[in-house]
């Protein structure tokens, strides 16, 4: 589904990856500063690779050779940023609603979906709060909800559970997995928490100084 | 260089007098090395107001008797220094190349879209113009066309830049600018006599020099210059 072969210069090393993903969740881990966030930003269209190609399904998102660079909003990629990026001038409800497209009314079936999603993320009582009045973990859950509600064709999650305790994770995770399987969304997930990585399958991708390796849990390369 | 020990004469000069007075001041400075003359020009009304409020002028050369009287009443003027040896005529001017007009009523014609006159409350030339137009019953008809200048020279500029089609100024102004010419001389009987009272002010710190300068204006050489500039001089 996702095919990615890109290069990008970073201050200390170069990001150089080449991989192909089928419709499943793939976990990326690796040391701090390895280039994980940079990779997701390239796929989302927030950064531009120096060379290579990115294809999602039969759409070319980026191609240096063909001069293609699909604008961010046409990529339909749900992206939970490492720093959440909630809209500070919108309530939690408006942040979530934003993902449902333009000028959605209360009658939109999405509204019901919104409430059930909020319910399962444990943020239903916070719908009318502003983002700055939330705790760290609460903000993170709103960011997850927002990405899920847009029903994306690809999901990019950058340490989406880093601010959550294990109890909360065990409530939020099933929802994420459910959306992924129900909608068949290929997913890239950055995490450094082994328990979480394990829940998404046997193999992980490991990034080190801009290079991606396939490996089993425990760290030995495949 | 030696400005420190120079006596600075600050004078408020009605704008219509400014071009000539400026030249006479240069001459005077050339002959009196210890005197420096600074000229503030504007409408006589505005100058009178500044003097009332305490501006430190040594001399006031007014284009209207009313303005001088106001200062006299407030006891700001050395009364014995007042001299009135100049007068002027009121004229209608048009940009160069335009036809002359036969009477003031012609100003009602549509080709005169805008007419410049002095702001009657502060500019004596405007006051005289208003008196004349009121006397022959044209003031109300022409009012929508007026662009009020802040001094009579301002009116002249409006006409010479052709942003208005006609203006009412002094004959001396009309003569000083070759982009305009006189279209009509206004009958003197229609307004108060135009006289230029000049005087030394009470607050002057250099009253002797100020009086001396006034005298030099009134000297034959001074009068000669004024006459050349189309002022009327009482000999």
């Amino acid at each position, binding site marked *: 589904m996702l095919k990615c072969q890109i290069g990008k210069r970073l201050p200390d090393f170069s990001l150089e990856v080449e991989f192909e993903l089928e419709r499943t969740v793939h976990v990326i881990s690796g040391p701090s500063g390895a280039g994980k966030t940079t990779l997701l930003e390239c796929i*989302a*269209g*927030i950064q531009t690779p120096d060379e290579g190609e990115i294809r999602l399904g039969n759409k070319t998102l980026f191609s240096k050779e063909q001069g293609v660079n699909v*604008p*961010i*909003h046409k*990529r*339909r*990629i*749900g*992206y939970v*940023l490492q*720093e959440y*990026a909630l*809209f*500070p*001038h919108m309530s939690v409800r408006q942040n979530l609603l*934003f*993902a449902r*497209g*333009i000028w959605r009314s209360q009658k939109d079936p999405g509204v019901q979906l919104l409430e059930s999603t909020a319910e399962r993320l444990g943020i239903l009582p916070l719908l009318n*709060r*502003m983002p*700055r*009045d939330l705790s760290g973990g609460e903000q993170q859950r709103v960011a997850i909800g*927002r*990405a899920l509600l*847009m029903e994306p064709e690809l999901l990019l999650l950058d340490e989406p559970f880093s601010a959550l305790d294990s109890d909360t994770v065990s409530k939020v995770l099933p929802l994420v997995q459910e959306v992924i399987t129900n909608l068949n969304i290929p997913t890239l997930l950055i995490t450094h928490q082994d328990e979480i990585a394990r829940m998404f399958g046997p193999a992980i991708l490991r990034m080190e100084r801009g290079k991606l390796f396939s490996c089993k849990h425990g760290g030995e390369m495949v | 260089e030696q400005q420190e020990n120079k006596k600075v004469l600050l004078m408020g000069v009605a704008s219509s007098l400014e071009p000539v007075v400026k030249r006479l001041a240069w001459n005077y400075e050339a002959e009196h090395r210890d005197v420096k003359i600074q000229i503030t020009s504007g*409408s006589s*009304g*505005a100058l*009178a*107001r500044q003097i*009332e409020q305490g501006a430190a002028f040594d001399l006031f050369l007014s284009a209207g008797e009313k303005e001088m009287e106001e200062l006299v009443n407030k006891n700001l003027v050395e009364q014995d220094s007042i001299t009135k040896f100049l007068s002027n005529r009121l004229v209608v001017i048009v940009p160069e190349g335009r036809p002359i007009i036969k009477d003031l009523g012609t100003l009602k014609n549509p080709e005169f*879209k*805008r007419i410049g006159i002095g*702001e009657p*409350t*502060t500019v004596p030339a405007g006051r005289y113009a208003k008196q004349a137009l009121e006397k022959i019953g044209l003031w109300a008809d022409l009012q929508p066309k*007026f*662009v*009020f*200048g*802040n001094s009579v020279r301002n009116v002249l500029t*409006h006409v010479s*830049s*052709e*942003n*208005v089609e006609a203006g009412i100024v002094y004959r001396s102004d009309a003569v000083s600018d070759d982009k305009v010419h006189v279209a009509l001389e206004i009958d003197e009987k229609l307004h108060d006599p135009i006289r230029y009272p000049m005087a030394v002010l009470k607050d002057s710190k250099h009253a002797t020099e100020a009086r001396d300068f006034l005298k030099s204006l009134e000297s034959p050489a001074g009068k000669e210059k004024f006459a050349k500039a189309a002022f009327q001089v009482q000999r």
Partner: protein
Amino acid sequence: MWTPVWLSLQVAGLATLIVAVLGMLTARWMQQTRLPFKELLDSLFLLPMVLPPTITGFLLLWFLGKKGPVGEMLASFGIEIPFSFAGAVIAAAVVAFPLMYQSAGAGFAAVDRKLELASMSLGAGRIRTFVQVTLPLALPGFLSGIVLTFARALGEFGATLMLAGNIPGVTQTIPLAVFTAVEAGQMEEVTWFVGIMTVLSFVLVFLIKRWGRAQSAKQGGRLRA
């Protein structure tokens, strides 16, 4: 008595309307474009801010006057800007433009780029992102720009005097009326203008401040204690 007040509000209102839209669009365009002489253009837009208004007024008069490069053309269509109501609006607008341009620019620059990118990645196109994310986040800059513009337009004197002259009922706004009245020593009139304008301005400023505070309070803040 009320004429200059009413006229001033009309002139300042119209000028603000024009400048708010133009200033915003220009600022946005300048933020995104990659012109070769961008910095020069930027300085040009800001010029009327630093140039004394009497000079701006003189340049406008020369430009739009009957013999000026643009004025001559306009005159052939029967449009005459100098000494007209339009002239007063143009003088106020030109003098106030840089304030809006600069404030709007600062407003746009203050918007976290990450939020705009987040918006786009949620499927919002350029326009929707602009309207729903950029604009509201840049709002403080805009509002202060609009306030500055209106204030500047309301008080405009030098350029108006030059370009539009001092014509009661047509171009004689309050600053000009006060100038004339003070010069003429008509103290009751001056007192009246000063009184009404002081009250009006005070109320205006007060309301704007109130509203601005209400706006910014909305975004809340963890540390408001």
